[in-house]
């Protein structure tokens, strides 16, 4: 660890010491630090006396970060147009030239100049993932000819190419980029990308559309989109940003639902163990159908598809929280929370004689370890939990 980071490490250890979650090794590091200077212990004592901290806490409350940010934004991000106007066309001109030279229609700019997406798709607990990988769950790419390729341990910063699909791992994020093979392979074949529990991937389709795949999901897609429509199949959950093509609608099929769009952003949840397929629209307009009836939904609406289609207004942040590395619960009951935890931490959650009642509201980073999440539920609700191997038992709190 770089020397500059030592104060950050020590701060983290102090916070852990205050919340009594230090491991023996961490305690040793902290003790060593305390021993190097008498003032260090005084500092630690200060944090233990909340009354003495009042002036500092008041100082923090007195600052208006929002106002300050408005000032800074005007001098930084909001004054950026001259720079970005100049940079973008250049990047695109370069991309166009490259595409022309190579004679292929991959949007090279996506590779060379990845969008600074406002939210990064993957933000996950590394250790959990490692744990899971040794398990049954592996990154799997099933090719059209039936071969299955297990992609273990892709090193960070590397690109692999298999059958025209570039697999790129950068900053812990895995992106599959599918080249457009319309010319070289006129006959369309289908591939499937499967995400294991505890992982999220991004797929860039031949038309430039992007799909973020949540944990325990699969996307079946063609090697090219030569026909009148662009069709894919989803199991599990995905967030779609579809490139607009007026003459070529994009179709997503997921269990009982078909969604038809021209160009838009939406989230689709179709896990087999959820009672309904839920489509949440962020931008544009989509048509949702279950084979019998169909409905158009507007941004901010969610379509609940069973035998019927029910529309409701929802918090879209909640629907796409997973894409931003968060769990987002809004008045959720324990069973709903349990299903989400099972899909991310690869655990089986069962309940004792009765499911503890109550509803929970809040946001938690998906990087939080599961024990911590369960502790929060325990403290907030009237429940107890037990963890044994990969099984979690949740029961109502005993009286007394």
């Amino acid at each position, binding site marked *: 660890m770089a020397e*500059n*980071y030592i*104060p*950050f490490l*020590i*701060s983290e250890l*102090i*916070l*852990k010491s205050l*919340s*009594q*979650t230090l*491991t023996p090794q961490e305690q040793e590091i902290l003790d060593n630090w305390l021993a190097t200077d008498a*003032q*260090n212990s005084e500092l630690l004592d*200060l*944090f233990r006396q*909340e*009354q003495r*901290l*009042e002036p*500092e*806490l008041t100082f*923090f*409350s007195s*600052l208006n970060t929002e106002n*300050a*940010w408005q*000032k*800074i934004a005007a*001098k*930084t*991000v909001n004054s950026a147009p001259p720079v970005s106007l100049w940079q973008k066309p250049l990047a695109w001109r370069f991309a166009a030239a490259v595409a022309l030279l190579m004679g292929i229609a991959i949007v090279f700019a996506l590779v060379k100049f990845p969008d600074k997406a*406002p939210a990064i798709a993957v*933000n996950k607990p590394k*250790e*959990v993932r490692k*744990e899971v990988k040794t398990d049954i769950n592996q990154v799997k790419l099933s090719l059209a000819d039936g071969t299955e390729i297990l992609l273990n341990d892709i090193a960070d910063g590397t690109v692999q190419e298999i059958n025209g699909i570039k697999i790129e791992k950068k*900053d812990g994020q895995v992106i599959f980029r599918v080249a457009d093979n319309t010319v070289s392979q006129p006959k369309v074949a289908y591939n499937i990308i499967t995400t294991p529990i505890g992982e999220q991937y991004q797929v860039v389709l031949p038309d430039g559309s992007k799909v973020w795949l949540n944990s325990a999901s699969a996307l079946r897609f063609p090697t090219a989109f030569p026909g009148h429509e662009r069709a894919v199949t989803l199991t599990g959950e995905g967030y779609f940003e579809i490139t607009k093509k007026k003459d070529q609608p994009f179709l997503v099929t997921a269990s009982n639902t078909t969604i038809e769009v021209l160009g838009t952003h939406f989230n689709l949840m179709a896990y087999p163990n959820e009672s309904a397929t839920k489509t949440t629209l962020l931008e544009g307009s989509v048509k949702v159908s279950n084979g019998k009836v169909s409905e158009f939904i507007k941004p901010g609406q969610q379509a609940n598809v069973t035998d019927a289609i029910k529309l409701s207004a929802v918090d879209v942040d909640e629907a796409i929280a997973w894409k931003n*590395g968060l769990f987002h619960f809004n*008045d959720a009951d324990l069973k709903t929370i349990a299903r989400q935890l099972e899909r991310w931490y690869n655990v089986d959650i069962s309940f004792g004689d009765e499911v503890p*009642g*109550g*509803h*929970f*509201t809040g*946001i938690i*980073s998906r*990087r*939080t*370890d*599961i*024990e*911590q999440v369960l502790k*929060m*539920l325990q*403290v*907030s609700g009237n429940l107890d939990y037990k963890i*044994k*191997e990969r099984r979690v038992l949740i029961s109502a709190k005993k009286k007394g």
Partner: protein
Amino acid sequence: MSENDNILKQDSSISFNQELSLEQLFKEYYTRLVYFSFQLIKDKDAAEDIVQEAFIKYWHGREDTETGNQAIKSYLYSAVKNASLNVLRHQKVEEKYKDTLERTLPGETSILQLMIRAEVVSELHRAIQTLPAGCQQISRLGYLEGKNNQEIAEELGISVNTVKTQKQRSLQLLRLRLNPEIFGLFLGFLLG
């Protein structure tokens, strides 16, 4: 405790890998950096100016700055430190501190301590802010204003027992919330 009981526990001593936008960086680090500078120069407005300048400087030079949130945080601290020390040097030149001529610029060790203080207090502040409203009020009255359970109960018109249970809950929640990995939390528990 058997080995199995431990299987789901992980070491969480790593920072976010996610690259933050300038706005997120600003909102995450602004108050702690102002506090850090304030500890050195004892002038709140000047401290705010210094920190804002540091963010602008970072933004314009970001292509040459190491990426990664730790590295950026470290860069910001060091920019704020240098600017604050410059203010102090300038004050010395102006001989504002005639009567404290023996006063020397803070050394590296005390600067590290001030950084740690800024880091820890900012997390504590955040943890208290995220407590449910009821707990927060009781926490403030109890820990910060030094009132006893009876006084708190009278002020809020609730029973002493409720104060006790709420205090207990606040403490537990506070402990959990102090984990820097957790930045959003259960805001409340609604009886269903």
